[in-house]
């Protein structure tokens, strides 16, 4: 027993040092003040948190939540059918397709984002192609708008939705589907009454992964959204890098983390209630 516990010490130390310590530092920092030249004044204040509730920042928060929600929904709508099709393939094809889903992770996300810029910019592949075909006379504004950011967000987060849903579909007992057919359920009804409820754990996991990482995303809005669309991730990044207001940046980070936790908790509760309702009916 004691030996087993000792084996866990390195991992615990690792977590304490790299996970808990930075969190404590950020929390500590969020109650400090910023000096005139961006230095930190060690004096307690809650002003950073009060400032968070200014309309400007609430607006950004609202935009961020909206973007994250939309990203999650679109990822679900696209990811579920993809995961479903992969799960239906033969074993070796499944492996190949999953590999293809994961291949983008091997390339730096920043580079992939710039690749989208190359595709979408006014002299980019899409515009050049359409111009050459004579379908358009002026290059389309495909970049630096809401749609471009949404596209980038969905692109970047789709694998996080596909993989957990694939796993739950893979675990689904094939005979459940056959039993539903046998009891008179059409394929569509079978999907909604049997497949979907039983893959709910995968949907929950995928949604949380996509939603949370969308909330903190700053690379995509930065590169594909231009200056116009700032999400809370960009705001935090700016506080640390440009505005040099580390205490406010820390407060924003803490608020974002708390908000994520609350939302995940509510989401989980809502789904549990939903399931409970189905159970007692």
């Amino acid at each position, binding site marked *: 027993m004691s030996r087993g516990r000792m084996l866990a010490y390195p991992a615990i130390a690792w977590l304490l040092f790299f996970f808990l310590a930075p969190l404590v530092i950020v929390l500590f920092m969020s109650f400090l003040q910023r000096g005139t030249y961006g230095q930190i004044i060690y004096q307690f204040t809650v002003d950073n948190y009060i400032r968070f509730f200014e309309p400007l920042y609430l607006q950004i928060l609202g935009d961020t939540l909206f973007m994250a929600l939309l990203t999650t929904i679109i990822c679900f709508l696209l990811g579920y059918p993809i995961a479903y099709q992969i799960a239906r393939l033969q074993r070796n094809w499944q492996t190949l397709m999953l590999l293809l889903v994961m291949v983008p992770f091997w390339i730096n996300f920043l580079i992939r984002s710039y690749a989208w810029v190359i595709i979408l910019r006014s002299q980019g592949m899409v515009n050049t192609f359409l111009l050459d075909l004579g379908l358009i006379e002026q290059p389309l504004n495909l970049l630096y708008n809401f749609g471009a950011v949404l596209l980038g967000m969905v692109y970047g987060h789709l694998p996080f939705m596909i993989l957990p849903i694939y796993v739950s579909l893979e675990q689904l007992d094939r005979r459940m589907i056959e039993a539903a057919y*046998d*009891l*008179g359920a059409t394929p569509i009804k079978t999907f909604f*009454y*049997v497949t979907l*409820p039983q893959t709910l754990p995968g949907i929950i996991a995928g949604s949380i992964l996509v939603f949370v990482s969308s909330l903190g995303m700053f690379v995509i809005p930065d590169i594909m959204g231009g200056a116009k669309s700032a999400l809370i991730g960009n705001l935090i990044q700016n506080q640390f890098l440009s505005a040099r207001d580390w205490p406010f940046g820390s407060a924003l980070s803490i608020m974002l983390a708390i908000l994520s936790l609350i939302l995940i908790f509510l989401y989980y509760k809502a789904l549990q209630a939903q399931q409970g309702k*189905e159970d007692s009916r």
Partner: protein
Amino acid sequence: MKAMIELQNVEKEFNGQLVIPPFSLTINEGEFFTLLGPSGCGKTTLMRMIAGLEIPTRGEILLAGSPVSKLPPYKRDVNMVFQQYALFPHMNVEENICFGLKMKKVPLHEQQKRAEEVMALTELTEYRYRQPKELSGGQQQRVAIARAIVNNPKVLLLDEPLGALDYQLRKHLQLELKKLQKDLGLTFLYVTHDQEEAITMSDRIAVMNKGHLEQMGTAHEIYHEPKTRFVATFIGENNILCQGDYCYALRPEKVNLHDPAIALEKTSTYRLYAGVVENVVFQGTIDKVFVRLREKDFDLPVLMAYQYFDDKRRWRPGEEILVGWEGPDAVKVES
């Protein structure tokens, strides 16, 4: 008698490989019919084709006179009890039972009424709000049956429904199932590899091997008049005696064991052979006695016989013995 299921030269290929050669079969209304065979003999495939879960490569399936082989499973008036029950884990007992009615848009009050009846019949009323994982194997099995019969199917298909249960419960449920079938007057098509189960429950049995039909008949016929060597050895225990091109199946319970020291009066049809006891295995109500025959022309070195304990005789290995049987008890079989 009305035919409920007719298979007309049904064939099935998987990836170009023929697993069921042309197969024909008629199952009558209200019959308890069993497909019996070792695993991989095609009995489950045959049942799945009737349920619509597999499409026959060739041939036609008639259900109550109308062709169904092109219909998807959800349009066929048959229901199936799956091997591991395949209950829906996210629904409670009552929801599982109502699922079929709900899918067919049966009015809610009618659903309620029929579910109540079926739950009463299968003694599940007190478990109606339980989740499947909170039930024992036997209870889950009853839910699977209730979920199927609540739809009033023309035929109930049962795919080794007792396979996952322990021996005692299986024995009990065999009789329960048989009684349920009689009470409901429903046609049962039962698939099993357990010959004992088949004999206990069935009106008629089709013995299958490697995709084809070996023999079809009542349990009595299958047991006492096996047509092939496979049937003779698959159902119960048998000695196969071969002389030249002819083979005979002789049940061990038909073999009498005699002490060579005691004189015997023989009838003209009685066969008597000398041998030595090779082994004796205690089996509870019987001793299984293995006798090495002196005669070499049977192509069977060791004959098996049952010694019942009411005979009060325990044989020991190495003893001289005489084995005998009535000639007609050795049934001629195709090898």
